[in-house]
């Protein structure tokens, strides 16, 4: 636990050092007093050698000197700026009325992930279990799936837009394509790892074909399947960003690109971190939920 906290504190510490210790990095100068340099304005960031050159020139001519303090480039805001952005990003009003607030963007992203992953699982889980259980289905499905999973999901972007229009549907399709084929293979492998002795025991206890599938295979792999789904959900998030750039840009990705365009990099960092927090939060929640759903798993984790 201590190390888990440290693993977060360590990068934060490095970030703070770079941001707050003036002699570490700080390649720019933020102008506080323009002096008589015609193009300097207060708050402007200039390269340090430009500033030094102007300063020297003015010192020689004896005019009013500009002043400034060391600063980092605009794309690296300090931790406290990003921290405030976690709040201000939500209250930053969209510039145009058609544009979305941050919470709307986030909600749109979560919906895309949810539907993409749900649809993928709806087909991927049963197919994976079938392929893992029966040799027939394994040979029928897996060669094609194996081929298809090498096709990068974003490559289908244009196609998805052409078929499904420019709104949420093609984005969900990209997440589906990115997740589904991996899911079938991962789950069929998980299914194959079920201890065959359990299947034999069930057979000697009189389990028929259907009972073997639904009363032995499915509960037998349930814990591993659940863990697989948690990992796959992480993959779905990585496809989210690409999918949101397809058609009309939307969701959190739209927010990030838009804020970067306005040079609100603190908002950009905050939004990226929000994705991480939502992802990790969901995973921890699912892990906690898993321990509730599968009480027999508790000691297995300890052993």
């Amino acid at each position, binding site marked *: 636990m201590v190390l888990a906290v440290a693993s977060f504190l360590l990068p934060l510490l490095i970030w703070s050092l770079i941001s707050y210790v003036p002699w570490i990095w700080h390649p720019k100068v933020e102008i506080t007093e323009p002096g008589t340099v015609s193009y300097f304005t207060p708050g402007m960031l200039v390269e340090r050698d430009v500033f030094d050159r102007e300063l020297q020139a003015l010192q020689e001519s004896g005019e009013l000197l500009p002043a400034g303090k060391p600063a980092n480039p605009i794309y690296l805001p300090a931790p406290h700026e990003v921290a405030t952005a976690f709040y201000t990003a939500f209250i930053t009003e969209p510039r145009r009325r058609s544009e979305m607030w941050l919470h709307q963007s986030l909600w749109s992203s979560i919906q895309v992930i949810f539907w993409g992953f749900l649809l993928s699982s709806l087909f991927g889980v049963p197919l994976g279990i079938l392929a893992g259980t029966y040799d027939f289905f394994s040979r029928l499905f897996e060669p094609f799936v194996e081929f298809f999973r090498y096709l990068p999901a974003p490559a289908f972007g244009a196609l998805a837009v052409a078929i499904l229009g420019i709104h949420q549907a093609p984005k969900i399709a990209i997440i589906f394509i990115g997740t589904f084929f991996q899911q079938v293979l991962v789950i069929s492998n998980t299914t194959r790892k079920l201890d065959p*002795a359990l299947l034999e025991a069930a057979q000697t206890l009189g389990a028929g074909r259907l009972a073997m599938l639904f009363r032995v295979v499915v509960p037998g792999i349930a814990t591993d399947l659940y863990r697989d789904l948690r990992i796959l959900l992480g993959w779905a998030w990585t496809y989210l960003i690409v999918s949101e750039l397809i058609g009309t840009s939307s969701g959190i990705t739209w927010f990030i690109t838009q804020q970067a365009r306005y040079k609100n990099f603190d908002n950009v960092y905050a939004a990226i971190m929000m994705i991480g927090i939502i992802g990790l939060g969901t995973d921890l929640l699912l892990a906690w939920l898993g321990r509730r759903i599968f009480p027999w798993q508790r000691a297995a984790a300890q052993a």
Partner: protein
Amino acid sequence: MHHVDLPSYLEQEAAVKDRFERLKQRPVSLEVQGLSKQFETRNGTVTALHDINFKTYKREFVCVIGASGCGKSTLIRVLAGLESPSSGEVLLDGKAVHDPGPDRGMVFQGYTLFPWRTVKQNVMFGLEMAGRGRMTSEEEALQWIDLVGLEKFANSYPHQLSGGMKQRVAIARALANQPRILLMDEPFGALDAQTRARMQGYLLEIWKNIDITILFITHDLDEAVYLADRILVLKAHPGEVQEIIEVPVPQPRGPEQFLSPEFLATKQRLEELIHPAQPEEESNGDHLNMMRMVRVDGDVPSVL
């Protein structure tokens, strides 16, 4: 090994003789006829079992013993229907069996309880498969759990049980189907000696109390003599029946019999069959090549 003069294992007390007479009057439970099993491997065909013939009678306890690799496990898997014989037949109460079924209960060497089911739910599995209602199967399962003395653990999960307890649940689970024969494949093989002895006691107790034929595989000579009415000795390469021994140790059995002359005589016979004295020439190259890997200084004098 034994320097005492032992009676022949073929000598039976009147009571024991009488018991075997009566035993053979009983109906035949399991009959194996001309059973052979070949496996295809990369190095050609391997005959695991060759022309096995034997019968078990109702309520009889038969042990199958043999050196490792003699096909004991293959035999019991064929009997359970988990593998099909290359030739020959397995008859249960006169009817040929091919597939696995609840009429032959099986207890495996490894732990095969369903980890997602509690003890009670594990025992209920077979009953559910037979289409019994939840109420009746739960009630029945609890009776079987009671029989193996685990009523306090009815709602525990398998991971919370010790190895011996797991195997007791596995026995209860197999028995709950009321099979006609209980097949046991070295069920106590993974247990420590003490637990194992206790489990043997439990098993004899259960066997006495219910109407069941048991076929029990083991490689432990003591276990075989202690448990069995008759012992089927298998020979390896190929697996063939070498001898069927009628154990002359009187029933009911108890741990005090381990040193009785009949017990030791039977064990000696098994020893001869399973580990025959090797002629000198053959054992060439079969001894350990001992070599001093470290130089021995005079610090520690040799005791030899």
